[in-house]
């Protein structure tokens, strides 16, 4: 992290960039937040550790409108989002100085809490440079430990790899974290009966409080005017609608990012209700891969997006019933 901070200081000092987009220390040991740093002085609060899961690429939409360059810290998965935003002409490459930062998996505080570790005061081992396999957690009830891998975000277990797809310079080491297949869960649901599927989603989606966090954080959801903000769309008032409205919200949200979602995992990370939103996104990704050929959004800015492309021989919609 020191290396990254030093580099940020240098770039600010020599005028290459006007500001640095990174993470700053939060009020708790596990909630660093995205922030701009405009002076060398302010960098004292700069932090990069295992809790810096936030994908900063979406902030570049606004930063692209500012004067001068912005140094933005992007993890490998974040660079896919940046690429996708570039393809959609939402960010300006010329306005960004991309520091590709290393990643050894990001942590999910909820996973730590689920192990019964509460009232956390201090966490050791979440720094990006130490090679710790376990986290030492100081709580008001004494010291607890937790394996790093057990506290990792779901998305890091299915990480797309540690190669940055776009960068100006690389800083810091990465470590392979993938140990699962991202479509396993989707395949398990596909194998259920219609009743089981319906019950599963009913249970998950009824938890939704329509806070819109999943939409706000998503780099693919960057329309200036959003359908969900319309007063004519009933889902803006969850209180007076019935259970279908939430399914509508979720299907439409996922559909709007189909073929553009890079599976960056931010939506699932920020959902305060722990709803596995990736199950929707990945269903579309899986179908697209199976029906129209492998496609990874954000990988190649030149490739044609699956929903703006077609072939004469495309599968007919009736294939849905036939696939079983």
């Amino acid at each position, binding site marked *: 992290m020191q290396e990254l901070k030093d580099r940020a200081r240098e770039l600010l000092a020599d005028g290459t960039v006007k500001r640095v987009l990174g993470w700053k220390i939060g009020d708790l040991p596990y909630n660093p937040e995205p922030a701009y740093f405009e002076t060398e002085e302010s960098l004292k609060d700069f932090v990069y550790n295992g809790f810096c899961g936030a994908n900063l690429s979406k902030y570049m939409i606004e930063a692209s409108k500012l004067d001068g360059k912005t140094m933005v810290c992007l993890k490998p998965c974040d660079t896919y989002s940046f690429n996708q935003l570039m393809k959609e002409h939402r960010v300006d490459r010329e306005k960004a100085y991309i520091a590709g930062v290393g990643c050894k998996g990001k942590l999910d505080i909820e996973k730590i809490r689920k192990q019964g570790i509460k009232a956390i005061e201090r966490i050791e081992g979440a720094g990006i440079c130490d090679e710790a396999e376990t986290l030492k957690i100081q709580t008001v009830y004494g010291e607890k430990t937790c394996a790093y891998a057990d506290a990792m975000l779901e998305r890091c277990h299915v990480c797309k790899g540690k190669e940055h797809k776009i960068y100006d310079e690389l800083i810091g080491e990465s470590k392979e974290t993938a140990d699962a297949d991202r479509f396993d869960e989707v395949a398990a*649901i*596909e194998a*259920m009966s*219609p*009743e*089981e*599927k*319906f*019950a*599963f*989603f009913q249970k998950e989606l009824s938890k939704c409080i329509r806070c819109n966090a999943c939409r706000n954080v998503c780099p693919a959801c960057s329309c200036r005017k959003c*359908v969900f903000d319309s007063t004519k769309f009933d889902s803006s008032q969850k209180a007076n*609608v*019935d259970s*279908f*409205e939430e*399914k*509508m919200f979720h*299907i*439409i949200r*996922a*559909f709007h990012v*189909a073929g553009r979602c890079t599976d960056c995992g931010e939506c699932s990370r920020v959902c305060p209700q722990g709803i596995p939103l990736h199950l*929707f996104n990945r*269903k*579309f990704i899986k*179908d*697209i891969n199976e*029906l*129209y050929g492998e496609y990874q959004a954000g990988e190649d800015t030149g490739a044609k997006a*699956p*929903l*703006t*492309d*077609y*072939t*004469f021989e*495309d*599968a*007919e*919609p*009736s*294939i*849905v*019933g036939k696939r079983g």
Partner: protein
Amino acid sequence: MSIEKKEFRPKIVAFCCNWCSYAGADLAGSSRLGYPADVKIIRVPCSCRVNPMFILRAFEKGADGVIMCGCHPGDCHYSTGNYYARRRMTLLFSMLDYIGVENGRTRVEWVSAAEGVKFSDTMNEFVEKIYSLGENVRLGDLRCRS
């Protein structure tokens, strides 16, 4: 007070493109080929005009089945509209199936202006299918139930 149990009559929404399928429906009519009155046709300029939301909205407002008809691939009045629609509908139907909605409730059929018979056959078949599936209880909004 007794609650009268009404016989099930499905509500079926058919989105038909202006250039082929709607003309196909017209031909079915003028050739005196019958199809059930449960089918309500909504004319759209092109199958590509059908936003996934239209389908969901139709279900929400009480439809028991939704069918979309357009020109055959290769014959679209706007050359390529139905190709995009085809991919969109495939993904949408697959998603509906994934969340547990019986996939027989959704369908896409390509009907040209000369295929009055196909239009009538398709509608008869689809209505029958919906009769066998019964009322749509998974997707409707309670407020829209009569």
